[in-house]
């Protein structure tokens, strides 16, 4: 447990460093050599594994996706702007990839388990994304562990003056898990679909 949190910290630290300053020059250079966009750890750490429940009520285990590229991000179905924007971007990524899209799994993990039922998540991700998209939920403990291990900030903000009741401030990065189960890179909100698609092509070609 303690070891895990240390690992998460170290990972977060390497991401932070990769993104800025002289300290990060070495690892940024390494990431650039691999020509991936976003912030990459070097060497890429294993993506923390998890098992959650998909929109059909079936267990979804990340490590069962080996051989595919998984694009993982975090959101909730009452989110009208950021989450659908990311879903739309990732749908475009799959479109841009053509036949290679069959090797790409897009996965949204909820940050609002109280309001997001599996059915609701399913409708949400498949309508704003495409029919192959997966929406995951689980019990709060399991979800909190996933948020923590991926360094995703989640905070419920009351919005008494709004009909939404509360909004959830949440980390908006997209995490790219490579076919060998490594956390290859992470993208900031708004990273162009063509950049992500280019990275995936490179990874699928073994670049």
């Amino acid at each position, binding site marked *: 447990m303690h070891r895990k949190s240390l690992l998460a910290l170290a990972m977060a630290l390497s991401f932070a460093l990769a993104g800025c300053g002289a300290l990060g020059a070495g690892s940024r250079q390494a990431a650039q050599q691999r020509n991936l966009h976003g912030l990459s750890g070097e060497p890429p750490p294993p993506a923390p594994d998890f098992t959650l429940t998909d929109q059909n009520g079936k267990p979804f285990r990340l490590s069962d996706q080996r051989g595919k590229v998984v694009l993982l991000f975090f959101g909730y179905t009452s989110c009208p*702007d*950021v989450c659908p*924007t990311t879903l739309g971007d990732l749908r475009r990524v799959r479109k841009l990839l053509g036949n290679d899209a069959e090797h790409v799994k897009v996965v949204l993990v909820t940050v609002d388990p109280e309001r997001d039922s599996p059915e609701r998540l399913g*409708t949400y991700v498949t309508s704003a994304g495409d029919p192959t998209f997966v929406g995951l939920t689980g019990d709060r403990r399991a979800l909190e562990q996933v948020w923590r291990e991926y360094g995703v*900030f989640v905070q419920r903000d009351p*919005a008494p003056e709004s009909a*939404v009741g509360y909004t959830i*401030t949440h980390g908006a990065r997209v995490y790219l898990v490579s076919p060998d189960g490594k956390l290859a890179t992470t993208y900031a909100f*708004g990273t162009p679909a063509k950049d992500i698609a280019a990275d995936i092509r490179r990874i699928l070609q073994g670049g």
Partner: protein
Amino acid sequence: MTPLHHALRRARTLVLAGALLLALAGCQQKEASGEYGQHADNQSGVAAPAANQATPPGGGQETQAAGTGSQPASGTTVQTGSAMAVENAWARPAKPMPDMGSSSAAYFVLRNTGSEDDALVSVSTDVAGKAELHETVPAQQTGQHDHNASDAMTMRPVDKVAVPAGGTVEFRPGGLHVMLMDLKRELAVGDRFQLTLTFEKGGAQIVEVEVREP
């Protein structure tokens, strides 16, 4: 494990955490996001509700609840000599969802062609139970979230959106938007619906919104 081991581990964690904070503090502006962002910065006069302001303004600034108050008769365009042009209005498709209502967002460009400042104060539509002016902002800009929120985005209601004389304000993904809540029907690509925009000085204006993919 001995207490010493524990202490050592804790120290290591602390050092790592400290280093992480320093690293993050050093690069808040690094890796700015790409396509989306704030078109409405502070200068564009977005007024957040008192709850969201760092320094509370004079007491109970009344929240302009979007909606029902100044609804014009349906189907009529109410133009009160407004010099406000509303362009390129569109909304995201959305399907009805189980358990609770589904939501969508509408976007447009406001162009104030007049010589007087004005502000959008509320929005309403027949297709949604509620329509509110919202803004997506990086959590760090709100001053309400700690540094761990460096990648996080947050959404906050806004009271009104000022459009200065001769100025333009763009609603767009990742920035200002109209949140449509409790949708009463599916919004499918190609659908059209009416949105009533009420301006502080210019009054109400009905615009046609096209449902499309971004």
